[in-house]
């Protein structure tokens, strides 16, 4: 298969491979990695054709573009030899077309006279067409990869431009320009990335059980999915809780966001509900009946219990007779607010998995974010379910904690092991206070002191980690 060079961006490194794999799966083409390094923005992949390369990259968020690889080497002599060896037969096709020749140096730079010398050294291509820096028919690029503070590049590539990525969507969906956001809205780049990794695509149905102001549904709808969401706080959906922006007044709601991007036709609607008492149909119930899932994907960023409280319906203490009666008498009152209680974070994650196992179609994806203190045993901390197979784990590190994007694939029923389904009842944190129920929250507000102590015995660290 021909080799292509993907010019990645050097951010969210651990998401890049997962995104490319997901994009290949959405497009339905085989993609193999030939060269990939977390430290480098240059990645070489195998793809069947130029069209496939274009299709894969057109939705990419963590890449700039894709190039047909014409050669590689660690010095210019090697590069020239490699180019002459692998691409000689390709030059003639571009012989008299308008062309463009540029240099892309990562962690290094070249003066314009140096650039000129490098470009001139490829004169044996014999291109006689006019040079056009804009709208050229063929665009050739030399890629230089330097080590940090190095004088000379360690790796060189040459490629012919095929297509640019979909990274511009990041600007379109930028939170700064969004009509309506809240304090915990997910950054547009990461929301779009989540949608890509969860395989959001035209005609699919996606759901977010913790939608807030609808960041994830918006991202999924951008890729053509039909979306629906819910949240325990109705004010965030209807937009009656006020705006997170200082001084902003007027009607701001989730529908308004969909209208801003012209995708309101893809918004199925939202409802107020709690995941532990969901109104959604649960086709596979305990009695083993299977009528099939109906969601192609679930994407969510559950509340961590820090900026957003982690609560479910119910009361901290068992209701007495009189209290029950009061609720029964008053619940029709328009001002009635149902009681809520703090909930165990681990239990919540397992509930999400169980919900996904029931409602997802075969091979549907669940992508959820999960915070973790850096000292915890990560292997143990990744929740599992017999019907779900982990397909990728991506990490966004912060100072003393990190958050992970966990993506699961709903296994077809035939692949689910029957023994696995007999899940042992787990013990969750017990208690009625949020701190007792949520270990992450407790550590967060203690400023991750224990782990600080372990790591920097004599260090002088102050207070709480970075806010998110």
């Amino acid at each position, binding site marked *: 298969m021909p080799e292509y060079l993907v010019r990645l961006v050097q951010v969210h490194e651990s998401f890049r491979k997962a995104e490319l794999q997901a994009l290949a799966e959405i497009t339905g083409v085989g993609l193999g990695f030939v060269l990939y390094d977390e430290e480098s923005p240059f990645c070489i992949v195998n793809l069947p054709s130029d069209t496939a390369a274009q299709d894969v990259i057109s939705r990419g968020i963590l890449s700039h573009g894709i190039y047909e690889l014409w050669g590689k080497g660690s010095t210019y002599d090697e590069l020239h030899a490699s180019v002459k060896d692998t691409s000689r037969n390709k030059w003639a096709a571009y012989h008299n077309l308008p062309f463009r020749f540029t240099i892309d140096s990562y962690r290094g730079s070249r003066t314009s006279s140096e650039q000129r010398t490098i470009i001139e050294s490829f004169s044996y291509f014999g291109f006689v067409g006019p040079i056009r820096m804009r709208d050229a028919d063929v665009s050739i690029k030399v890629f230089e990869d330097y080590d940090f503070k190095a004088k000379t590049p360690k790796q060189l590539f040459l490629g012919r431009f095929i297509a640019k990525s979909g990274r511009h969507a990041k600007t379109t969906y930028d939170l700064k320009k969004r009509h309506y956001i809240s304090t915990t809205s997910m950054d547009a780049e990461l929301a779009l990335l989540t949608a890509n990794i969860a395989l959001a695509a*035209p*005609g*699919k*149905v996606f759901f977010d059980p913790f939608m807030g102001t609808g960041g994830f549904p918006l991202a999924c709808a951008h890729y*053509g999915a*039909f979306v*629906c969401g*819910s949240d*325990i706080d*109705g004010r965030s*959906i*209807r937009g009656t809780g006020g705006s997170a922006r200082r001084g902003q007044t007027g009607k701001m*709601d989730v*529908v308004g966001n969909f209208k801003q991007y012209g995708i*309101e*036709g893809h918004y*199925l*609607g*939202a*409802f*107020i*509900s*709690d995941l532990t*008492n*969901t*109104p*959604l*149909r*649960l086709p596979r*119930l305990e*009695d083993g009946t299977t009528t*099939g899932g*109906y969601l*192609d994907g679930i994407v969510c960023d559950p509340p961590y219990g820090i900026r957003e409280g982690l609560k479910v*319906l*119910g*009361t901290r203490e068992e*209701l007495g007779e009189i*209290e*029950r*009666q009061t*609720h*029964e008498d008053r*619940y029709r009152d328009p001002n*009635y607010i*149902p*009681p809520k209680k703090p909930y165990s974070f681990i239990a919540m994650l397992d509930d999400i998995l169980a919900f996904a196992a029931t409602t997802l*179609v075969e091979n549907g994806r669940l992508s959820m974010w999960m915070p973790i203190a850096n000292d915890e045993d990560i292997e143990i901390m990744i929740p599992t379910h017999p019907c779900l197979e982990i397909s990728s784990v991506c990490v966004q590190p912060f100072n003393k904690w990190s958050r992970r994007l966990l993506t699961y694939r709903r296994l077809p029923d035939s692949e689910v092991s029957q023994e696995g389904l007999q899940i042992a009842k787990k013990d969750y944190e017990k208690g009625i206070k949020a701190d007792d129920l949520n270990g992450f929250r407790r550590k967060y507000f203690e400023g991750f002191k224990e782990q600080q102590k372990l790591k920097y015995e004599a260090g002088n660290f102050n207070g709480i980690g970075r806010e998110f």
Partner: protein
Amino acid sequence: MKLLTLNFLTCARRTCKTSPSSFPLHPREAELEILESELNLVFLRNILPRLMWSELRGIGEELGLPSLPESPPSREDLVTKPSPAKPSSVTEPSSVEEEGGEGEEVPSQTAKDLHRLLLETTIKEGKLVCGNCGHEYAVKEGVANFLLPGHLV
């Protein structure tokens, strides 16, 4: 909320989940609104096998909407068959045009009706009632509230 969502919603009470009468929820005093949107054949094709057809028919009838056929349409029913008479017409056959015509699928009346019902008909205000326990969920500004009061959790 678009009418399609009713195809996924039941009563939020756990005790009702096992009872067949908790699905679908019955709209009452519903104020409907038509919000036009572009028909999407890919989506209709994808969602068609996941529809609970007889329940959907029931909801349509309860809301006094044009009734649906008794059995669900097939995926093929969503597009109109390209008329075989066209290529043999008098006009000069242009190969480019023909190719374009073949790729472009024309949604059938069935697809249009389904799109109208599922994606353009929305509930703005009203109630959704569980057929099993009779609990009423209010719909305000197109957003239904499924939070259960303290004594029902």
